[in-house]
């Protein structure tokens, strides 16, 4: 079942500039979906559209199976969100900020202290939010998103401004929410590495267009496909010729040969053959493209 689904979602801020282009998000129930893309890719714009913060222009949005505009209130009651920079009342304390929202969500008053403890912000007392550090504000903003015990949590770069420890804490918290309460989480980021250990699914967006969407495993198998072998020999031209005779596509790079990934045995045979032709083999290596470089390839 899909918790969130968009169809051909398209948005233009100006007639010629397309910020979001035919985006078909598919966020499965119970998944943690990493929404990745470089600056200006259209992540925030997509998330604002999904929450109704931007007037929809083209396409459709379904949350919990219902069209957003037809069941806006019902949907929003079950969605927690944090979009870009924290959205908090500076003249109020952390608790007061949460009570303002607790009244509207009608959740139990005890929930306020619960979420403050969850995000590691239990003792700020009478301190106004305007005097908080960036990381403290970010934590409070996450508490705000968690307040209604949402079935869907939408977080736009939630770890912005957090220290390394904070990043790990929040990651653990999100994992916990996902496992314990089956909360579906949609989380955006610039860095695959940052959310790689958290997400089950990935969507990669660039210049408003989705470049990849699927499970993290599907992305990993893309990585497997991109394994390559480097061969450094004393006679690259002859080596290349020999390989081509065996129908192995090899290309030269800086005097080295690059060939697709092959079984170990096959590599050993190639080595023997080269030596047999009096070619010295200096190096046989495997280049491993990490997920990050796949990501960078996709958004190039």
């Amino acid at each position: 079942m899909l918790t969130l689904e968009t169809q051909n979602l398209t948005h233009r801020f100006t007639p010629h500039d397309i910020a979001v282009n035919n985006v078909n998000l598919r966020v499965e129930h119970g998944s943690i979906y990493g929404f990745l893309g470089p600056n200006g890719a259209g992540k925030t714009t997509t998330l604002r559209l999904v929450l109704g913060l931007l007037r929809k222009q083209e396409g459709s949005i379904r949350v919990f199976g219902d069209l957003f505009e037809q069941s806006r209130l019902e949907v929003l009651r079950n969605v927690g969100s944090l979009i870009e920079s924290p959205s908090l009342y500076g003249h109020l304390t952390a608790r007061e900020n949460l009570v303002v929202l607790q009244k509207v969500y009608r959740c139990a008053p005890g929930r306020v202290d619960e979420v403050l403890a969850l995000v590691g912000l239990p003792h700020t007392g009478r301190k106004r939010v305007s005097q908080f550090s960036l990381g403290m504000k970010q934590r409070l903003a996450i508490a705000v998103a968690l307040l209604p015990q949402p079935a869907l949590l939408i977080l736009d770069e939630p770890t912005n401004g957090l220290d390394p420890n904070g990043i790990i804490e929040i990651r653990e918290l999100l994992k916990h929410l996902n496992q314990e309460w089956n909360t579906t989480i949609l989380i955006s980021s610039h860095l695959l590495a940052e959310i790689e250990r958290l997400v089950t699914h990935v969507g990669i967006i660039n210049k408003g267009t989705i470049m990849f969407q699927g499970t993290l495993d599907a992305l990993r198998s893309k990585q497997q496909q991109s394994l390559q072998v480097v061969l450094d020999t004393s006679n690259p031209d002859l080596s290349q010729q020999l390989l081509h005779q065996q129908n192995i596509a090899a290309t030269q790079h800086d005097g080295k040969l690059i060939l697709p990934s092959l079984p170990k045995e096959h590599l050993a045979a190639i080595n023997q053959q080269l030596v047999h032709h009096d070619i010295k083999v200096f190096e046989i290596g495997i280049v491993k493209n990490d997920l990050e470089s796949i990501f960078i390839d996709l958004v190039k």
Partner: protein
Amino acid sequence: MTRSFFNSLQSEWLKTKRSLATWIVLVGAFFTPVIIIVVRIIYHDTLATSYASPTFWATLWRNAWESIAIFLLPMGSILTTSLIAQLEYKNNTWKQLHTLPLSLATIFFSKLAIIVFMLVQFFVLFNVGIYLAALVPYLVVAGVPYPTAPIPSDLFVRETLLFFLDTLPIVGLQYLLSLHYKNFLVSIGTGVILWIAALGSLKWKFGFAVPYTYPIFNYLKSLPDNKIAAPLVSVHVMAVIYFVVFVGVGFWLFVSKREKG
């Protein structure tokens, strides 16, 4: 609908805690009464006669309202309304507010209700202030009698209600402007310009068409030779019409905003 409106009211009320707007209401309501008390204590030798006068309360009422009706009430309403609405822009909280399970009408009208409530709060406190302005000199200065004339409470209530109606157009237009424009100088600036225009158009035959003139008209009507052009229609009716129109247009603009936050 009604329940979430009530919840939204509670939420909006909490937001005004410690805000500048709350202070403006408090300071505005007791500003003139405090000045009157200080002046009376300084010139205490004239008090015995004035406290015995049959027109004691009417004179006090007029003195208390002078700076309020002409200056503090319009300015205070401009500032308070803009500050309350601007709270969301200033804190970048529109996006949070718009992702709450609240209809646009609930958001718009609960915020407006809080502003109107603060206006009511101001009038109540100001009436208390006026009473204190009579009471404190009597308690503090020896030999001053308690005012012999009875408190004309029907005058107080009627005039307060009229001033309330007359201030509503200011609230309505300031609310519209400060919801619509992110830059709060637009709403404050427009407010100040309209107030100056109101002062300048009092002698003009059609001065009553300027929406910020009504508290001033209502105050000046009681002065003997006020030199103002008598409004051709009831300013109170005009005030209510303007308020309804401003709120209607304001709501329409609010609903049709493309970017909610």
